[in-house]
């Protein structure tokens, strides 16, 4: 009976909770590369600043807002809200990107 109870705890893991992915956006040449990225709910997005000046990642609806990301530093976001997010760099507002977060039914809360 005890073994049956333990099995019910581990079976969901064996049958695979959906794995989240880590995706990277490079900030280089005053551009977000790629400028449009589609990810899945629960994924982690890392912005890596390869420029010589700091930038931010600021969503237009304030869904997410990084601090100043210094050169050679990164900022990570675990996406927990589905939708299409238009973001930009606060000090350099001509730098724009789009993050599309898709719902995955198996992982919806």
């Amino acid at each position, binding site marked *: 009976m005890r073994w049956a109870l333990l099995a019910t705890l581990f079976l969901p893991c064996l049958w695979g909770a959906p794995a989240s992915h880590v995706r990277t956006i490079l900030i*280089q*040449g005053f*551009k977000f590369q790629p400028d449009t990225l589609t990810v899945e709910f629960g994924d982690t997005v890392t912005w890596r600043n390869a420029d*010589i*000046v700091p930038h931010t990642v600021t969503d237009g609806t304030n869904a997410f807002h990084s601090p100043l990301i210094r050169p050679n530093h990164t900022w990570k976001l675990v996406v927990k809200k589905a939708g299409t997010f238009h973001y930009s760099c606060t000090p*350099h507002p001509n*730098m724009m990107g789009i993050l599309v977060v898709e719902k995955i039914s198996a992982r919806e809360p």
Partner: protein
Amino acid sequence: MRVSLRSLPFAAAVGFAFLSLQPAGAQTVPSDPQIVGIVIAANDIDITYGKLALSKTKDKQVHDFAQQMVTDHSAVQKSVMDLGAKLHVTPADNPIAASLKKQAIETMAKLKGLSGRAFDKAYIDNEVAYHTAVIDAVSKVLIPNAQNAEVKAALTGAAPLFVGHLDHAKMLQSKLQ
């Protein structure tokens, strides 16, 4: 009286300064010390323009832009000077840097005589013209003629910053029309 800096052939003056490397008939290219001297002069000039704008503008977007020019060009300045020190390249005085500084003194005098919206428009118009000329010079003269690979790489890495600044300045220019 409204004065527009658009009447000044600033971009042409800066462009001519970069092309007038030698007296007529000579065929040389700028040396790496001269290139470093030119970049330092160009950065210094835009930092100076930005500080003037910070002291005069009442427009938040122009203020934020000017602050960014000071911040970003100071960062580039530091990286250029650090690289020069690492490579033991001493920035060399040269006619191009001298011409840039001379033109900048004239432009500063005109900007100081303006205020309010007239100043904001003139400052941003000048930033568009200045960055356009600098981008042209960096891509056509400085990068192709840099001898040291690290100097060339540094100029190549900084070029998008100037383009980003130009894009930002043009965005503001259209808003100030």
